[in-house]
């Protein structure tokens, strides 16, 4: 066929254009981004007696569902930190990672909602923050 190459190249271009600039993918990205943008953004945790270095789990609850925000980071006495994302509880537990924490610190954002999940997951609260102050929230 005389124009085999030209037709092939045009089809490739169409495929790239539709795939990369797909308006539905674009809308999906915004929808995917929006809930996370609405999650509480920044907290301050002041704890008086925690290990000098600890790995931290931050649990929070959003929209009445048991979604968790987790954040693992360096903890030195008093520090600002971020809760950037929401993770599904089953997604985390399926990796079997919770039992591996040497130190963790559960920060109770909503004690009533959180406690059953902690018991269910077999977590042991080693320390909890003395005070929690929400510094900034996108909501």
């Amino acid at each position, binding site marked *: 066929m005389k124009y085999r*190459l030209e037709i092939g190249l045009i089809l490739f271009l169409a495929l790239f254009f539709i795939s990369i600039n797909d308006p539905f993918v674009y809308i999906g990205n915004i929808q995917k981004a929006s809930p996370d943008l609405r999650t509480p953004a920044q907290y301050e945790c002041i704890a008086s007696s925690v290990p000098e270095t600890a790995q931290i789990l931050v649990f929070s609850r959003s929209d009445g569902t048991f979604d968790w925000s987790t954040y693992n980071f360096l903890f030195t006495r008093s520090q600002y930190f971020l809760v950037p994302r929401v993770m599904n509880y089953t997604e985390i537990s399926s990796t*079997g990672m919770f039992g591996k924490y040497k130190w963790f610190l559960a920060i109770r954002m909503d004690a009533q909602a959180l406690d059953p999940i902690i018991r269910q997951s077999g977590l042991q609260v080693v320390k909890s923050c003395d005070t929690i102050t929400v510094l900034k929230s996108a909501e």
Partner: protein
Amino acid sequence: MASMLSILIPLLIGLFISVAIIVREGRWGEWLLAIFLAPGIGIAISSVLYFFWVIVFQPFYLLPGYLALEAGLTIILAAVVWAKFRRTILPPPMAFWKGWLAARPWSFRTWIGIAGAFVLLVSLANFVEDWTLAFFAAPDGNWDAWGIWNLHARFIHSGELWRNGFSAEMTWWSHPDYPLLLPGFIARVWALIASSSQYVPALVELCFILCILGIIVASVGLLRDWKLAIFAGLFTLAILYDSLNMQQYADMPLAFFILATNLLLWLVDSRKNQPQLLFLAGVMAGAAIWTKNEGWALLLAIVSVESVIILVEKPKFRDLINGWVWFGAGIAPLVITTLVFKLCVAPPNDIVDSLSAQDVLAKISDLSRYALIWQSIADQFFKIGLLKVGLLPVLIGFVLVVGWNKIPRSTAWIGLRLIVIALVYFGIYVLSPHRLEWHLSTSLDRLFDQIIPTLILMVFLFVNSLEDIS
């Protein structure tokens, strides 16, 4: 001022080195290639310098002295480049466009190329927009970013107790044994700007992503033709979209260094009598090792393929030694840095540490593991990339439509290196101490992303130029 210098100095260090080695005839493609290789070189060197500075002085001490050290290195490199290029080698500003416009009347394929350039530019703008959205959705990156890479950067940045982040008490999934190119550089910038800004790791990642695209487009444009370069860019962009699901991970930097190493080794074959390219290839391979443990697979691939080349091409002994000395001079500082980190700072690797002879035998003889790995690879083959029908099948379709005449040996060596890397990855899955389904589901797509940019480069180095086909 310090903020600007913290970014500018590594870029200049990388630029002076890459310009001194890559630019020979002063063509636009050479300059573009040097520019896109530069950030990776500069980030690797700065990261190494800062790591040793932290080891000796601890963070936050004598930072002006550290800045002076980098500035001094920049001035020395500037002098070297100045000495080499006393006469200007900048290309005439309009040379590219004049040559391009003189080619009129344009063929139908030229118009397809122009349409392709339009699609590439629109898609690139779309990608940057999506990347921005993804960044604001997860400013600290995805799981591995805050669980591993940025966590390590925070420890380095934290002060005197920074080594606690690399102790055996850290959980295995924070991987305290992972090397420090990325965390080291991020911590370095944080220290110099006196702020642990979320923008730093995000922009470093974006820089690597755009440079991968730039290297492929510039090198295919330089070594083949600009129409092929546009299609190479489109394929690359389709795979770079995967990085939106793994923001601020070290996989894209590793992909950058694997790509750059293979490209430079290819250039060594095409440009005779320029052993400095081997030095730069060594730096890139060393940077891969300093980025992720998978970098060792690249080194193994290089050594294996060089052994095959010795058997096939039978080079002179003197040339062989000369080449290895240049390569060794480039890779040695980064390998030594990685070994210092592994031996003096980090705990043992979780996979290596958990292996016993009995366990290894049991896993090697378990055929169900091989079946599961193959099945996952087959799934990824049809899934990887943003394209609606899978990027790899489309790439194969492109090769079949465009065709090829002869695959040069130097291009085949790239393919062989990728095969060795893939075999190493396969072996790691076989021996993995973790639940295999979980290990595959959380990492296989990233391993594909590490090597596919190099695969795209390889393909576009051997397919027919669009003007060659009648």
